[in-house]
C-alpha cells in the first residue's frame, strides 16, 4: 500500500514522499504514519496524543480533506495511494506539523465564563436550559474547521476573524444561563462574525459532528442583527444620536472576494 506523506520544513526542500506500508485489517491513517516512523523514517514529524479521536491532535489533510488521522480508516478511502499533508491554513513547522498557536491567542481574547458577582452556587440548573450547550462543549479543538474555512485558508484574515472554532466557543458562553457577559459586539467587531457567509464547510469537516453553522454561527448572527439591524432600535439610536449606533454602519457583513474552496 502506498502512502504519500508531505515532508519538509519552511525554506527547505518540500514535497511528497512515497512509503510502502503493509496493510493491516481496520488500520487508520495514523497507524500507517506510526509504521513509517518506526521502520522507515524515524524523524517524520506528526502530532498525535490519544489515538481515540478525543484530543484533536492528529489533524491533517488526507486525500485533500481535513480529517483526524486516528479516525480515518484506510479501508474506507478510495483504492490507490493515500496522500497525507499538513493543514494548509497554518504555517508549516515540519512535515505534518503546523503552527496552530494563533488559535490559542484568539481564545485569550474571548472573556471567560463569568457568573454574577456573589452567585457562587451550588446551582440548580435545569437540563433543558443547557441542552444545546453540550454540543458546543464536545469540541476537541482539532482546528479542522479553522483549516477549511476560506476566510482563513484562502484570504488569511487572521487579523480580523476568529474562525468557526471560536464562534462555537462564544456561542457556548453566550448561551450559558449563568453567564452575565455579552460578547456579541466583540465577536462582530473584532471577531469578524459578518465575514462568514455560511457555506457550512466547517460543519462538514467537524469530527464531533457539531452543527457549527446552524447552531453556533447563525444564532450569533441573529443576536448581532437584533443588536444592530433591528429597524426600531436603529431609528431610536439615530434619534438619540447614540454614538454606539455608528458601529452599525461600518463594515458589517462584508464579504471577502472569492468563494469557499470547492
Amino acid at each position, binding site marked *: 500500500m502506498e502512502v504519500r506523506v508531505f515532508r519538509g520544513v519552511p525554506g527547505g526542500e518540500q514535497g511528497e514522499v512515497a512509503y510502502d506500508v503493509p496493510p493491516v485489517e481496520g488500520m487508520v491513517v495514523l497507524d500507517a504514519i506510526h509504521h513509517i516512523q518506526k521502520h522507515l523514517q524515524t524523524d517524520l514529524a506528526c502530532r498525535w*496524543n490519544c489515538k481515540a479521536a478525543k484530543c484533536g*491532535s492528529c489533524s491533517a489533510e488526507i486525500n485533500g480533506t481535513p480529517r483526524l488521522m486516528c479516525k480515518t480508516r484506510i479501508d474506507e478511502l478510495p483504492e490507490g495511494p493515500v496522500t497525507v499533508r499538513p493543514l494548509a491554513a497554518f504555517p508549516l513547522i515540519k512535515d505534518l506539523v503546523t503552527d496552530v498557536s494563533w488559535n490559542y491567542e484568539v481564545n485569550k481574547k474571548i472573556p471567560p465564563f463569568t457568573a454574577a458577582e456573589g452567585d457562587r452556587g451550588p446551582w440548580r440548573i435545569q437540563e433543558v436550559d443547557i441542552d444545546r450547550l453540550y454540543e458546543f462543549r464536545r469540541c476537541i479543538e482539532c482546528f479542522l474547521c479553522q483549516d477549511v474555512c476560506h476566510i482563513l485558508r484562502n484570504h488569511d484574515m487572521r487579523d480580523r476573524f476568529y474562525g468557526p472554532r471560536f464562534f462555537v466557543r462564544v456561542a457556548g458562553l453566550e448561551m450559558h444561563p449563568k453567564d452575565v457577559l455579552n460578547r456579541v459586539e466583540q465577536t462582530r467587531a473584532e471577531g469578524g462574525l459578518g465575514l462568514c457567509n455560511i457555506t457550512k464547510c466547517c460543519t462538514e469537516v467537524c469530527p464531533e459532528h457539531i452543527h457549527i453553522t446552524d447552531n453556533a454561527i447563525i444564532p450569533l448572527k441573529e443576536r448581532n442583527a437584533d443588536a444592530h439591524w433591528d429597524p426600531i432600535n436603529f431609528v431610536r439610536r439615530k434619534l438619540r444620536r447614540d454614538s454606539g449606533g455608528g458601529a452599525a454602519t461600518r463594515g458589517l457583513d462584508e464579504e471577502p472576494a472569492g468563494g469557499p474552496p470547492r
Partner: protein
Amino acid sequence: MAEPYTTIDCDVLVVGAGGTGLRAAVAAAEAGCRVQVVSKSLLGKAHTVMAEGGIAAGLGNVDADDSWTVHFADTMRGGKMLNNWRMVEIYAKEVIDRVFELERWGGLFDRTEDGRIMQRAFGAHSHRRLCHVGDRTGLELIRTCQDKAVHTPGVEVSMEYTLTQLLGDGHHVTGAIGYDRNDGQFVVVRAKAVVLATGGWGRMYRTTSNSWEGTGDGAAMAYLAGAELLDMEFVQFHPTGMIWPPGARGILVTEAVRGEGGMLFNSEGQRFMLEYDPQKKDLSSRDVVARSIFKEVKAGRGTPHGGAYLDIRHRGAEYIKKKLPSMWEQFHSLASVDITREPMEVYPTIHYTMGGVRVDPESAATRVAALYAAGEVAGGLHGSNRLGGNSLGDILVFGKRAGEYAAEYAKTVGSAPVIADAQVAEAQSDALRFLAGDGDATGENPYLLHEALQDAMQDDAGIARDQQSLTRSLEAILELQERAKRMRVGGGRVLNPGWHSCMDVVNMLTVSEAIVRSALERKESRGSQWRLDYPDLSEEQGRVNYAVYRDGELMRIRAVPLEPIPVELSRHLEDG
C-alpha cells in the same frame, strides 16, 4: 561549557498541563506567584481528556445517604487498605468543593430532575457518585481548567516543551532543563518551587489506553532528583479496552458503559461476573473485573478476537447515544460496530498507575525541598487499586493543594536560584548524545527498544505475574538499559520524534525497573498486583508500602510502615 539556551524565570514551575497542572497553576497564581506551565503537547490535549466516566464526589444528589465518609470507606476498601488514609480523608472531603468550583468556572454537568448535578453508579462505589457529562467528563474538566488558567493573571504556558531533568543538588530543586520540541533549542526554567503534574506511565505496556505522553518522565526525573517512588508495583488494568481492529487495541471503553447498565458475557453467553462477585457483579472493582475477563479468556470462553462481550443494547438507542455518545462514535468509526445493535468486544488494557512519587498528604511535598507532586504522578491516594472517578477528583484536590503549598514555599525563597553552568552542559550532552548528526546513524532504534520493553512488561510484568516472570522482565529491562546507551537517530533537532523517543525510552526504562523491583518485593496478591505464586493477601505485607529510591547508580527499595488510621476514621470503615 553549555551551549546557548533561553532562561525562563518564575516563582513556581508547573510541569504538565493536564487537570493537575492547570489546577496547580491557578492556585499558585492566585497566591500571588509568577507561574510557568510547561506542557509536552498543545494545551488541552493532555491525557485528562481521555477520562470519560466522571468525578466521584459524595454530594448525595442522587443517593441522599452518600457522604464524604462513605466515599472515604469505599476508596480505602477499593485500595485494599494500602492507601494513605490522610490523603483519602482530604480527598473525600475536598472533592465536593472542587466539583462545585468547576461548575462556577463554567463547567457543565448532566443534571438531575430537580436541576442538581447528576451522579451515576461506578465500579465499587457503594452509592451513585460520579458527577459526569455524558462520557466526556475529562474533556469538560480540562477545557474548563484550561480557560480558567489562560485567563488567570500570572500564568504563562509554554506548549510543546519537553523537560529532561530537574536541576538542583539532590536535596533541593532549583528548576529544570529541557528543549522546545519544535526547534530543539534548550531552555532552562529557574524556579523557586516545582510542581510535577506529569501524569502516569502506561506506554511501557503493549496494550494501553495511554497516549504517547505517558512515559513516566515526572517519576523518572523525581527519582533522579532524590525523591522516592511509592507503590510502583500497582499498575491498573482497566477491564474494558477495545480489542479489535488491531490498531484500536487498548483504546478505552469507559466503565460508564457498565455504570449505565452494561453487562459482561463470555462466548457461551454466561454473565460470568455473577460468579466472580455476586454482590457488585459487573460493577466490581477494576482489579476483580479485569482478572475475571482474563480468566474467562484463559479458560477458552473468549470472543473471536480473544476478549469478553460487553452489552448495553437493552438500554435502547436513544439513551445510549445520550449517555455514551463518544463510545457510540468510537465503535462506529473504528470498528464498524453499532453498539446500540451489537455487543462490544473488550479486553483489559493498561490504564492507570496507582504508584508514584511519595508525597506529604497535606502539602504534596516530596522529600526533596521545593519539589511537589500531584495527580497520577504522585502515589498514596489509591493504594493498590484505584476506583473509577477518583482520578478526576484527585487531580483537582491535590493539584490545588500542590499549587498552594508550592507558592507558599516559593515566597520564602529570597532571590532566583543560581543554576550551575556545568549542570546545564551535562544535561545538554545527555540529550544530544542520541543525535547522530553527520556521523554514523547506526545504533539502537528507540522505537524498536520501546517495542522490546513493551514485550518484557506486558508478557512478564502484566496482569498476572510470578517470581519467574518478574525476574525475566527485570533481566530484560537491565539489558535494554545497556542497549539504550547506544540509541542513535538521524535527522536534526527540529521536531524530530525519533530523538524525542530516545528520552522517553530512558525514562520508561527507569520507571519499569521500579515497577518490577517493587512487584518482586511484594510477595502477595493485593489489588492490581496478582502474583500467581502468592495468590493470597498477606497480613504482614498489608502493613507496608514499598518505596524505591536512588543510591548512587543503584535502585534500592525499602518498606515504609503504614500510618495507623485514627479511631474516628476507622469507625467509618465498619459502617456498611
